[in-house]
């Protein structure tokens, strides 16, 4: 008796988000990145189209990071002192699909850098790179509302993905994104209802749902990974079953979370039973990403070039179908 396959039939697809614009479209990128668009659960190719592979954005900061472990900074070299060099390195050497520039220096508790300076960093990074850009603020609402609209304006035409907006602070940036032709990152605190609500609020301001990415707020391996994992599965099941307000691609800040984990950072001298620290850190970031690929991640923001390479190879393997 042959086995008869149990195939799921879905009524809806994930929306397709396009990041970047080439010259003919009013930008200066050499290629654009498309993500989402899938009609099935992750990598189940026989049940629906999966038109775009998950992509890796490598994260760079406007200001040298002060709390990254040596295993991470030494892989990036002196480029971390200069966002422009760092950006070039990510594109040319590390083969990133996209860049993710985090304006950490904008935070009032950090350097509180002037807006003009931050805008210039964005322009300079765009100038020296040809891959699409993701831009995130410092996470302090007031400051982000001051900085991000100016950056949005300066990047007009480049169709960047910019964020993040949250439930009680979305209007300012959504208005800018709408005016400047970009897309937006909607962040919700591991909560499917808030994710949906925020998407409704944003689309009510007439930003099309194809211009939204959901940040479900992931946790690192060992640090609450399973919460976001299940929220993503639930949201994706709802999306494929027809809920358009949850059908946006997921962006996961894997590197940010994974490199805060003790297991990624601790020295081998502190925890000899945990093994070599470089392999451990790289694996921590890569395995965090792997888990989220299986729960539906579309954009992975990563930090270590070796983890990014491992995950890229794994995506290649998975996409062979």
């Amino acid at each position, binding site marked *: 008796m042959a086995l008869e396959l149990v195939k799921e039939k879905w009524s809806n697809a994930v929306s397709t988000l396009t990041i970047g614009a080439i010259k003919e479209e009013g930008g200066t990128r050499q290629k654009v990145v498309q993500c989402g668009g899938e009609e099935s659960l992750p*990598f189940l190719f026989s049940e629906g189209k999966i038109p775009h592979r998950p992509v890796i954005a490598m994260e760079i900061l406007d200001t040298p990071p002060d709390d990254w472990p040596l295993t991470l900074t030494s892989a990036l070299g002196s480029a971390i002192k200069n966002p422009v060099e760092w950006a070039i390195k990510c594109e040319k050497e590390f083969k990133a699909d996209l860049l993710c520039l985090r304006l950490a220096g904008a935070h009032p508790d950090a350097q509180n850098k002037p807006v003009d300076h931050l805008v210039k960093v964005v322009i300079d990074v765009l100038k020296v790179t040809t891959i699409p850009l993701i831009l995130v603020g410092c996470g302090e609402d007031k400051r982000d509302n001051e900085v991000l609209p100016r950056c949005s304006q300066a990047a007009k035409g480049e169709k960047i993905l910019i964020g993040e907006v949250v439930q009680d602070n979305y209007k300012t940036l959504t208005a800018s994104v709408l005016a400047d032709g970009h897309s937006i990152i909607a962040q919700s605190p591991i909560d499917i209802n808030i994710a949906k609500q925020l998407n409704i609020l944003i689309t009510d301001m007439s930003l099309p749902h194809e211009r939204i990415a959901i940040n479900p707020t992931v946790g690192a391996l060992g640090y609450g990974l399973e919460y976001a994992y299940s929220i993503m599965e639930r949201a994706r099941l709802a999306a494929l079953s027809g809920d358009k307000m949850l059908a946006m691609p997921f962006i996961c800040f894997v590197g940010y979370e994974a490199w805060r984990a003790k297991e990624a950072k601790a020295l081998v001298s502190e925890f000899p039973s*945990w093994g070599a620290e470089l392999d451990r850190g790289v*694996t921590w970031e890569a395995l965090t990403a792997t888990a989220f690929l299986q729960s539906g991640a579309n954009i992975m923001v990563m930090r270590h070039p070796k983890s990014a390479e491992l995950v890229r190879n794994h995506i290649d393997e998975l996409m062979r179908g």
Partner: protein
Amino acid sequence: MALSGLDIYKLLPKTNCRECGFPTCLAFALSLAKKAVSLEKCPYVSKEAKQALDAQSQPPIRLALIGDEKNKSEIGNETVMFRHEEKFHHPAALGFIIEDSLLDTEIKERLLKIGKLHFERVGQHLKTDLIAIKQTKDTQRFIDVVTLISGLTSVGIVLMSQDTKALAGALKILAGKRPLVYAANSQTIADLSALAKENASPLAIKAESWDTLPELTKKANELGVLDLVIDVDTKNQQAKVIAEMTQLRRLALKKANRAVGYPLMCVMDKLASQAEVIRAGDYIAKYAGIILLNTFEEWAVLALLTLRQNIYTDPQKPLQIESKLYAIGNTTENSPALVTTNFSLTYYTVLGEVEASKVPTYILSVNTEGMSVLTAWAAEKFTPEKIAESLKKSGVEEKLKHRNLIIPGYVAVMSGDLEEKSGWKIVVGPKEAAGIPTFLKNLS
């Protein structure tokens, strides 16, 4: 497929005799459907009804047991496709492949290293489960290696061999230890089933194709072997492996297909160890019951055990610790006191940092029903009232001369209210646990 209350009702006598303790047969049937009562309560149930209901009470994916009572790995008996629907029940057993071509000294070294691969995380003890012995040499060498290994370890064993004589010899040595016999194909199904039955061992089935799989499991059943494990070919492309495991789980759960209602196993191909960890990560997420690894690097195993812990955590029951006052280090009446939640992840993260600071400290864990600081605060489980009450109950007031309480930076907003309700002076601590060592050192 589970029977509904009405389906069961149709099988009952429908006399409403009440001898089962329920007012009507329907009420009894509804309770049976929820598995809240046993069928034995009905003295008049027919043989046919009993059979139908017995079949229904069998799990859709059979539980397999490897190892002896003391060191048993239980896998299978899973009930859902997605962990949020209920939970994943039996964590995938992780094991290591040891080839018999290694020298005895190498095998001993390897076992020693594997024996050290266990870790404490969030109050749980994480360890690997199996040693798989793979035959690459002659019959006698395999039996010798099995003898060597069984003398050195008590964990569950997987015997990877196609050599019936070697397997028979190995099974004799491992009598009572229920090793998994790996693996029967259509040529060897009769012989290996006989061996597995004789030794009460579980048997892995390695079908040549999707179509022969149900034939092989049925054949094994007919030959008296019920505890089976289905081997999934990991040499296939990764997406195919995932699709296959998804299909097998769906067939078992959604179609109640008993011929494939067994736990799945993945034997890893030899890869660079990081690539192996990543592939194995997919298998942990997507339904493997057993994963056999080649790599035994500490970082690789730590990462995989942690992922397994995450995926198999009960989503309805966050890991919690007892909410009480914990004294960390040699505390005195002048030691600082800080408060956090009883969510294990939060508590152990805070604990780790307090220990790292080497400053003796009291940690008061408030019962937030396993919620983290911000979630608990938003859900009103971590409020000034609750914290004040915990302070009173904990007995911390008798232990300390001072009345200064450090609260998480994320709930700084409750400082004033908490001072009023508790009478303690509130000190706002760092937002992230990582800031605790510096914070504590600067206090003193």
